[in-house]
């Protein structure tokens, strides 16, 4: 009896507490291009060390050329998604590939939207 009353009281109290998260909660990627970009980043991170070392062998004036040709073939054999050049810094909220500011990882439109609603810390409209 007492235990049941206590648990009921606890549940009631929990409903009163609001979840403290403002804004949207996203549990999906915006589009497939964003998913592919995420895959490329993961693979590039895994192969980053190897690529660095093989490139150190290739871009060399000391080692023999045959060794460098072999290294060329090796790096071409790595998965295509492992090269960092394929990564595109997309907007985090809208997946826009162009007009993205690196510091905020947001496209210019989203940035302007949040800045005008005073939701970007330390950002102010320029006037001089």
């Amino acid at each position, binding site marked *: 009896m007492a235990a049941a009353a206590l*648990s009921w009281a*606890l549940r009631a109290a929990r409903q009163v507490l609001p979840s403290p998260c403002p804004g949207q909660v996203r549990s999906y990627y915006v589009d497939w291009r964003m998913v592919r970009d995420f895959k490329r980043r993961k693979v590039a991170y895994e192969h980053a*060390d190897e690529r660095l070392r093989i490139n150190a062998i290739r871009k060399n004036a*000391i*080692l023999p050329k045959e060794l460098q040709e072999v290294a060329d073939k090796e790096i071409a054999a790595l998965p295509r998604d492992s090269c960092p050049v394929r990564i595109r810094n997309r907007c985090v909220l809208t997946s826009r590939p162009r007009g993205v500011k690196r510091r905020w990882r947001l496209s210019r439109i989203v940035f302007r939207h949040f800045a005008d609603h005073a939701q970007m810390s330390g950002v102010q409209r320029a006037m001089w």
Partner: protein
Amino acid sequence: STSSMLSKQKDKSAASKDGSPEGAAKKQEDGAGTPKQQLLDIIGDMKVEVSYRKKLQQLKASESKKQAMAKLEGPDSEGSVPQGVTEDTQRGKPLNPELVKAASAVASSLPRNKKQTESELLAQLRRHEETTDQQKKGGIINIRNVISEMTIKRQSPAQRGTRTSRRISLQLDEDDKRLRRERSSALSMDSRSLKVGKRLNIFTKASTEPEHALETVSSPTIWDLEFAKEVAAVTAQPPRNGFEEMIQWTKEGIMWEFPIDNEVGMEDDAEFHEHIFLEKHLEGFPKEGPIRHFMELVICGLSKNPYLSVKQKVEHIEWFQKYFEEKKELLQEI
């Protein structure tokens, strides 16, 4: 060649002239094969340029010390050196023998009192090691260790004044009561000292001391866990003010802990010489040829890299070793 380049001997270093070639010869006899011995040889060959002003100061200092030594009795001056040695050995853990060797080599290269400079260098090294150890462990820098040579006064005159005043005021009571009260007053004076009490750990990392022994539970059932979660959810009231909000964020890990520790999450236990002198990892490679040249460049670059840990650097070198071993047949064709 190095000795000829670096040797600019002056009149005062006549004494060291006699000492250092002997020392250099001794070291060369020991075995110049290892790179460390070579380094020590180079340091021993190097002569330090002493400016004229410094020489004058050192002359004065040496004269004053000689006078002091002459004033002291014979056994005292002899006893001071071993006393210093025992003091050094009693303090903390012993130094790295390699560092000690390097310090002695440097001391021998300087033109002044070799023993004195060596002891000073060792003392400095020891202090450096102590501070780095304490910073690594996050311990409180005990000021007493630093100022251990100064005498610490036990009784302050203020305490004496209060005690006498209390005695005077209690003269009205009977003798028995006065004695007891004196004792209790003395105890209360001692108990109200600054060193008693739990530390607030504001400026030091809070040491995780288990204050009460944890009771071993056989197996917390799911219902117990659920109950614990519910209790925590209820008792965690929304923060009443900004301070409580910041406390909550610090517990969750959103906010850093103040005073900011620059080395949070960075636990590099390796010494500086393990980062820089990486030639010992080059043993698997051929001693001559383009591969060795290439690997020496790699090591030069790694030694200047402050962002990698020693493990990562060793892995880097081992990857190259594996790679070149796989390509051995190819290389032999060339």
